[in-house]
């Protein structure tokens, strides 16, 4: 069955069974390998992507339910690693194996879009779905705060520049 998807700002047409989870459409059909498979049952959140800006489990989302909603994957945060979350993850040197980090970063990016200055409690709530088998949580928490700083200082700069003009 053919589906027209909006993935990272591009229209992509795929011919797949309607019950195929978005995860496998992204990975095996569209060759976007950033999104990871970990459990298939919504326990680890390694497959987290954004659907209209909301963090969802791609492993539990049938492609037929996506429709025209905007799908954003890690590849769509930025192509050159300049999204504040990507910068913070590098500055803090968060990963060990790195496998869960796509999902972690997507959860963090969704949190920051809604809550630009999250407290530890906000971070606990938003990031608690994402498992890290290597146990990099202390750094993940630090990196979310760092990304928040980068986001607010970047928007402060934008405002300044705008007021000068």
């Amino acid at each position: 069955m053919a589906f027209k998807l909006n993935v990272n700002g591009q229209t992509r047409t795929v011919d797949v069974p309607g019950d195929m989870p978005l995860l496998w459409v992204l990975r095996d059909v569209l060759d976007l390998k950033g999104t990871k498979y970990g459990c298939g049952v919504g326990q680890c959140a390694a497959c987290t992507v954004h659907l209209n800006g909301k963090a969802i489990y791609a492993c539990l989302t049938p492609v037929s339910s996506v429709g025209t909603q905007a799908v954003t994957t890690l590849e769509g945060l930025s192509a050159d690693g300049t999204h504040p979350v990507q910068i913070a993850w590098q500055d803090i040197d968060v990963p060990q194996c790195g496998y869960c980090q796509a999902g972690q970063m997507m959860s963090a990016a969704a949190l920051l879009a809604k809550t630009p200055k999250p407290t530890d409690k906000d971070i606990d709530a938003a990031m608690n779905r994402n498992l890290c088998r290597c146990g990099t949580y202390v750094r993940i928490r630090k990196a979310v705060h760092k990304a928040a700083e980068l986001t607010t200082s970047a928007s402060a700069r934008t405002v300044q520049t705008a007021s000068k003009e």
Partner: protein
Amino acid sequence: MKTQLNRRSFLKVSAAAGGGVLLSFEAPELLAQGRGGAPAPPPQVSAFITVAPNNIVTIVSKNPEVGQGVRNMLPMMIADELDVDWKNVRLEQADFDDTKYVGQSAGGSTATPNNWNPMRQVGAAGRAMFVSAAAKSWNVPASELTTSSGKVLHASSNKSITYGELAPKLVGMPTPDFSTLKLKDPSEYKIIGTSHQAYDLHQIVLGKPIFGIDVTTPGMLYAVFEKCGVFGGKVVSSNIEDIKKMPGIKQAFVIERPPVTDPVIPRDPGLENGIAILGETWWHAQSARKKLVVKWEEGPRATDSSTAHAAKAAEMIAGTPQRSLRNDGDAEGALKSAAKVVEATYSYPHIAHAPLEPQNCTAIFKDGKVELWTNSQTPGGGRQLVADTLGITTKDVKVHMVRGGGGFGRRLTNDYMVEAAYIAKQAGVPVKLLWSREDDMTHDYYRPGGWQHLQAGVDANGKIVAWKNHFVSFGVGDTFAQSAAMGPTEFPQRFVPNYSLQASVQPLGIRTGALRAPSSNAFAFVIQSFIDELAHAAGKDPVAFRLELLDSAIPQPAPPAGGGGRGGFAPPGLNPDRMKSVVKLVAERSGWGKTTLPKGSALGIGFHFSHQGYFAEVAQVKVDAANKVRIEKVWVVGDVGSQIINPSGAENLSQGAVVDGISEMFSQEITVEKGRVVQTNYDKHGMVRLAQTPPEIDIHYLKSTFSPTGIGEPALPPILPAVANAIFSATGKRVRSLPFSKSGFTLA
């Protein structure tokens, strides 16, 4: 990752065309490593370094990367002694190649101790060759030359030349004798000892296809492999013909293998019976598999049951031990005359590795040869297993080493690798085999569970005079199941005058194997909890009691080589002075005995020596009325020798070890019923989540004068008893069985 682009060939060709040179070193010491002390084979050539005309240096990472940071660490050793700037270094992952490299495996925290000298020597040899080439070219003595940032300098004439410019002059130059090389004084290090981000970090944040699961190759099909839930079960009949007709399914076939009849399941028993299904996408193959109906002949292991194992263990503890592993002095007699005797039974379950990236391997079989992409921790062992199973020679098995999404010991065995190779051969097309999480959880090599019945006596001065352990484990006769042994030098042997270790075993039908800090991950919980019980019985402070124990070392002859039964990673003996230093420092850093905590909060301590590393850890816990445990802070002090190679990675690894240990302690248990593993996914075999993680995990490395050793494993074991002892201090409740969730203690 696309296999069409062969990065290695690309580099070689471009380097040659651009006038660069590949440096080859004869490294006899390197080749002698890990060969059990056998005489070194004739020197062979090991290639590690390429210098391009623009002075960009490419260094080969030879070991498998599964998150332990080795991809950076070994090249950092080379680069520092070569005296180049890290920003000009590019890393290239080696394929498995035992004609060039030694020790291409990830296990036992061995990468640092085994490579510390050879890798620095490779770098120093390179530097010496550039100096020698410059000396010849300028006609000055080499002693007048220095190096810095990839350049050779002559101070008196103010001349300098880059390694890239000198490189062509190195062709044909003999390699310096490694014994003549002068290695840097640690004060001269510019790269070693400085934090360097993971080399793949940028690729990770961009979501680039760098993991095993991301490998694709033209024309490949996705494979799943259905095995019997009972190890060794055989297919009797199935609806495979219906499966072949399902949408997107290209092939399906039964694999029949001879049964594994060994009484104790071998370390890596290899390919099992089952049904392979190949589809256009993994989803097609996995969906078809869900419709598969198989009648299995389950075989003799189908009666295995954890409930029955526990009952049998209780019977064994009440009875006479099957055999004796050690008897120092007279433990029975000393128990009778002790002032106080403490007796307790501890237990711990089987647990799974469950690395987040499920097992997978990509294979192409063509013209009698197989090419594999794997994140195995033992690619050499995998290559041998594949060759033996396919009936070809290891020469005809090419192994590419791909980044692994976690290892923890699961990828020391190569079942998924031999499955991919065999299925690709049978199918006649390239194959990517991917296990589901359920496959992984139910077909692991589990950390074996066990029971320990302990009796110990303290004298009137509060000193331990007798220690007796009846170790109840799995195995048959004199053979323990894999990673289910206890060695005759297990702590506190050598520190207690009357020490007795007895053992009993019962058979086990599931596979077992090494999990991060094998045996130590369970034994530290038992031994350090029981030592705490003795400290309280003796009326002594747990830290002071431990220091006194470490002061009681009894001089003994060196333990026999290879003893210790730690899955082949037998450590040399514990040095009490090193352990005392970390215990004292962690007590100091945590404010032990100096801080007053509110009611319901307390500190606990544990230490453990494993994989040549000395670690002591203190946990501060808060326990509420409902037995919800909040671990508020953890202090870790480790002595792994004179040098931390990459501080950022070293801190990360130890923080992770603490989190991993807490997961094992509170949430993990694998049980068996009717020969099948009951837990199938993370909902039944969980791990710590961010909100449960201690907000602060303070890591400190105490630098000693000893040669550097590894971190990945020894940082884990002490956290379990540290938390257990803290819970006791906070509540007066002593929990002697893992996981704690079964006793009502859960993580807040």
